[in-house]
């Protein structure tokens, strides 16, 4: 084991660079992620960090690099700082409407989309959602695919959606694209896909008591007997 490096300096190179955090310039080592740069510069992070592994979207951040005019979104636990970069954590909290639905009660899941999220069909194709997505999902196309009923494709496209919500505030048609996609994906899985035969069969076997006798025997075994019974047959 190597000695434990302080979390705020993991990845640190010897070169120092300047970054701006919420408008204040700091000198930090090259090689830090944005979140580590926050810790390195003494920021307590409560809102703005979650899984620390690029999966939860809690650390969504907005940044601009030196010679770029554009503001970009990213995940601060994954993104490295660079010289001249300016950024802030945006806390991933949007009080958007989330429609309430009961998947079991819906008769036609594809039609139901227009009741649950009527605004979905009003997409004005501005593409802002796609530009905002730190996961590089073609969000705009996903909204259209949902509207046209290609739920399977939507589910594939949004499998890596971390629900960071960055696509929500930018939408000029008041759509929450990630929620539209999640509805489509869930409906596809729960209602538009046949139950898997192999799973159904096993559930039925268990219910019919196929293993009951075996369990009786097993649960009365001593540790030695369990050990012997558990050797994989070659």
């Amino acid at each position: 084991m190597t000695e434990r490096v302080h979390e705020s300096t993991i990845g640190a190179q010897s070169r120092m660079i300047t970054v701006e955090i919420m408008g204040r310039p700091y000198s930090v080592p090259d090689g830090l992620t944005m979140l580590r740069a926050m810790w390195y510069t003494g920021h307590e992070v409560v809102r703005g960090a979650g899984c620390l592994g690029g999966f939860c979207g809690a650390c969504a951040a907005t940044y601009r690099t030196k010679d770029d005019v554009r503001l970009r979104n990213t995940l601060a636990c994954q993104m490295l700082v660079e010289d001249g970069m300016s950024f802030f954590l945006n806390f991933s909290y949007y009080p958007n409407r989330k429609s309430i639905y009961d998947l079991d009660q819906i008769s036609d899941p594809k039609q139901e989309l227009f009741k649950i999220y009527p605004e979905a069909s009003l997409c004005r194709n501005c593409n802002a959602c796609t530009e905002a997505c730190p996961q590089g999902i073609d969000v705009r196309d996903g909204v259209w695919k949902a509207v046209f009923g290609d739920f399977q494709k939507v589910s594939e496209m949004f499998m890596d959606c971390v629900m960071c919500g960055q696509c929500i505030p930018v939408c000029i048609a008041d759509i929450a694209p990630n929620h539209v996609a999640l509805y489509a994906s869930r409906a596809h899985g729960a209602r538009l896909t046949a139950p898997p035969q192999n799973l159904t069969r096993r559930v039925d076997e268990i219910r019919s008591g196929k293993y009951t006798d075996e369990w009786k025997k097993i649960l009365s075994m001593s540790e030695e007997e369990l050990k012997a019974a558990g050797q994989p047959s070659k």
Partner: protein
Amino acid sequence: MDVIAESKSKVIHERDERRKQTVPIQSPEERDRLVRAFHPDYKKEEYHKIQTGPNAGERTVREVAELLESDSPVPADLDLTPQYRVDVLVVGGGGAGATAALTAKALGADVLLVTKLRMGDSNTVMAQGGMQVAITEDDSPVTHFFDTLRGGHLKNDPKLLKVLVEEGPKAAQWLIGLGVLFDRDESGNLKTKKGGGSTKPRLLTCSDYTGLEIMRVLKDEVLNQRIPILEFSPVVELLTDPDGRCSGAVLKNMDNDQFIVVEAKSVILATGGSGRLHIEGFPTSNHYGATGDALVLAYRTGAKLAHADTFQYHPTGAVFPEQLAGALVTEGIRSDGGHLVNRNGKRFVNELDTRDVVAASIIRECAEGRGVKTPAGRVGVWLDIPMIDLLLGEGNITKRFPAMVRQFERYGIDIRKEPVLIYPTLHYQNGGVAIDTDGQSQTQGLFVAGEASGGLHGRNRLMGNSLLDLIVFGKRAGAAAAQRAKSVPAGKLTLSHVTRFQKELEKNGIKPKRIAPIILPDYVRRAEIMPAAAAKQ
């Protein structure tokens, strides 16, 4: 860098040789010897005796001992007038918590879910490898039982384990009914993959986003069921009635540091693991809030812990690039044929042996000089990911591991072309608060589910069993908690168990080294902060 490049080219050159080779699974005796010699669980100098409470006399790592024998963050004279009165309080917004909340709610209970970060910010969301369910024709719940028992060194509680494997298929059905999209084959059957320590392919996957897909759906359903959620409101102490039964909890609003008191007829702790304790100095794959809170909260009420001395070090944590140190490289890579290779280009273990054995053998390779040193001074061995495309055909890595490809791509490493350096990372709390088959701890009214609980996995969890654990036992705990709430009145709210525990500490001459639950690891650098201008020259 030269050493790395040279070793890397050996990895590439010896591929054809290695492909022909099979590395046998070791005999139980060999495995035992290896684990005792190299696994961190057996490093004697890291272990301390617990002196106070239900597990007094047992040994555990220093970090856990200090956690258990700590001070409470709640003042003894706190006004305990409740702001919330509910049937069931669910603590933790990961997979186990969401499942328990949905189950209790479906049984008519009035449920409140509170969590430390945002709902879903958890270990669950990161699970990539998949969920074990015995569904193929030549597999059975019984085979699953014995695989798990072997993996756990026969220390698993057989009753809990039987529940897990037998209710597994129904748990998978429940998730599919909610819209979770497990991978299918051409005929519409669920695809299964083989995990380490398993004799049959049994892992259900959603590409390498299994946990994310499950968590996204569960969270959405919790919202659909209108279960109220308090985010950034961790439990900092439990409350008990004069008979020692759990009757509620104290939360802390992390935005304004105010305490919130909740009265509940049943409390379910689903607060997950403890990787952020950085046991034995290890980096971890765990989420920001994985500080083992359930261990100390339940312990103070008098609930016993099971296997609190054993942790799972996932064999393949990244060591390069430095920024990813500790991050997980999913076991799916090894399931699909990725090789573990030492500095000399040689394999040294069957990649699909149990995690403790594989981790111990990697540590052995590095300890005996067959590891590769990174520029930042870490050591590791190679995980030859491109082997997968060689075995299964071009494009398979991209299709099967999109999250992994993306994660390394950010640092200019193309895992489709290059092997990566790995070393074991602190990954999973094998033990936890001891529970019965209803998920109840030794404290009445206190239920525990998911990674926070203990007994099911024995001394080493079999991969893929944790996702199953949190669904099966999340449901069990949710149901039993709702049931209990129907039959008992609300209890009085006191902190008397805390006072009692503190007296006991004092009697044993222990000066607590910390205040716990810890809530978040302290990662803020305390050194002087350089203003940018001064650093320019």
